[in-house]
């Protein structure tokens, strides 16, 4: 039972991170290798807000999330927009550079010591008893809830609202969208903002729950395996992908070898690439497109 709870919690974290990959990928066909670093920035934004502005989580957390969303807009305007028309791979490399720069900035300001925002907010993290004898920490439970809420909200937004339809239209054919008077740059900036917001949310939760250090970005690399297993352009597939990868990871930690568990998302990824390269729910045509 504890293992199941562990899987669900880990999967929720992956979903929060993976949402960023999927949104950015759908908007610009770019795999954002800096997603993990944006998550880290979200965590540090929380820490900065707590130490300089206010220790109350009601102020600090929204502030950190706003910084995260704003970071997405800035990244799009400064780095991604000029890359329009360049090969996708070049844009991916730009996100790699971005990741490097973000990490450097954080190390220069906060050094590479681990930080703990939760005690700074004067909050505890008491365990929550679940039916069936399992227990998770409060923040674990919060992670699951926010992942579910974020995913449901995004799906409804993209299916039902006019803005969401335009966003899907712009993602499919940006040029045509522009020919129809849709300002796709604004929509892509919104995609990046949402992606980076999701990353910051993951960062805030993870930093409060576990710890904060500049190497947090590695988690992002694992989450891209999740996004690909589910299908890079499918939000729904993300849940399945996250559950599969988290299950494999938890099982290898418990039964095989902790060293191997770090690699297990990539093994899942390799297996998926060999069998169904476009992922569980991804669009097959995506393979032709990139």
């Amino acid at each position, binding site marked *: 039972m504890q293992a199941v709870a562990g899987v669900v919690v880990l999967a929720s974290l992956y979903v929060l991170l993976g949402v960023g990959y999927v949104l950015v990928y759908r908007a610009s066909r770019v795999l954002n290798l800096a997603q993990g670093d944006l998550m880290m920035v979200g965590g540090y934004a929380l820490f900065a807000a707590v130490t300089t502005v206010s220790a109350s989580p009601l102020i600090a957390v929204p502030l950190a999330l706003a910084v995260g969303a704003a970071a997405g807009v800035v990244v799009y305007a400064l780095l991604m927009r000029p890359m329009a028309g*360049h090969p996708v*791979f070049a844009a991916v*490399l730009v996100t*790699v550079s971005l990741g490097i720069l973000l990490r*450097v900035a954080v190390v220069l300001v906060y050094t590479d010591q681990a930080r703990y925002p939760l005690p700074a907010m004067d909050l505890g993290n008491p365990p929550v008893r679940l039916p069936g004898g399992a227990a998770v920490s409060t923040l674990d439970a919060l992670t699951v809830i926010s992942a579910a809420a974020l995913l449901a909200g995004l799906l409804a937004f993209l299916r039902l609202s006019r803005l969401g339809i335009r966003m899907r239209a712009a993602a499919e054919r940006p040029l045509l969208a522009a020919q129809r008077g849709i300002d796709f740059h604004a929509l892509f900036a919104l995609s990046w903002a949402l992606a980076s917001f999701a990353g910051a949310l993951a960062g805030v939760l993870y930093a409060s729950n576990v710890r904060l250090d500049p190497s947090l970005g590695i988690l992002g690399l694992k989450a891209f395996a999740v996004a690909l297993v589910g299908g*890079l352009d499918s939000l729904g597939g993300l849940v399945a992908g996250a559950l599969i990868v988290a299950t494999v990871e938890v099982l290898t930690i418990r039964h095989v070898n902790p*060293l191997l568990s770090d690699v297990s998302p990539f093994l899942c990824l390799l297996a998926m690439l060999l069998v169904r390269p476009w992922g569980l729910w991804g669009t097959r045509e995506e*393979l032709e497109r*990139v």
Partner: protein
Amino acid sequence: MAHGSGYFKTTYEADMALVDTRLRRLTLAALVVLLAALPRVASPFSLELVTQTALAAVGALALNVLTGLAGQISLGHAGFLCAGAFTVGILVESVKAPPLVTLPAAALVGALLGTLVGVPSLRLKGLYLALGTLAMHFVVLYAASEYQARWGFNTGVSVPAPTIAGIRFRSGLQWYYVLVAFAALTTLLSVNLTRSRVGRAWMAIRDREIAAASLGIAVARYKLLAFVASSVVTALAGAVWAYYRSFVSVEAFSFFVTIEFIAMIVIGGMGSTLGALLGASFVTLLPYGIDAVVGALAPGGAAPYWLFPLKFGAFGLLMALFLLFEPLGLVGIWRRARTWIVLWPLRYAPLRSAR
């Protein structure tokens, strides 16, 4: 013969020649003389820099063949290097194998790994392939760290100086000659691959796979060949690296190393041999350049703690700037300058007139 100069080659000999203009012959001769004379004039430190650049150039050339020529994106370059280095480390540690055994073995491991990674490339393209190679990188690293943990080499495996034909390679000067020669051979190979049937097939596949296939190019075979050629050279570079550093450890082959090599061919100019060489020099020498600048600004005292992040950041910034503003890299700048000189005083090539 500069592009657009209006002069054309008129004999097969001229077409086959490696260096075709007097200016290029002179440049090449000057380069050879410079490299041969360098040990007499340069300090051991600058000799060491050239040696490192040469080794990096081998890796960059190999990656350029795969990514620049054949258009197969690989994020697993450090994995290939790691495989080559650990082949040497393991063979030397367990059976005291001589270099004449370990180097071919490393090449063989490289070829096997290249085939393994190449097979998915028959189905995958672009980003998906890149992700596959990245996954391969983590798996190779896991295997290597498992070896280290299992056999108790927690920090790494040490490799004694190799002996070939009675010569023990240990001094900086010896390594200078060995690695510069290695880089020169790889350059020659790369140039000749580019202008042969194989290279043309790769470029055709890079530009449009379906069109290449309809021209009768065996796409699958050439893709695999690109992976194998690149990974053999890379694994060899890894093996030589192991001997040169006389130490092998997983930490040296992080994902960042892959990024460094990709940055080399991006900054130099994708798909160009000259670009790979320029990029390798640039990326290798950048941190030392920063050291020199910081040393000149603040002489004496221990290196400040921000020096390392600064180097790291400068590297990331430069890569982003090149991608954003000069995607053709250093070679692109050079070509534009050349076109500018050829066309001067015109700004553009004139409108093609009605024939």
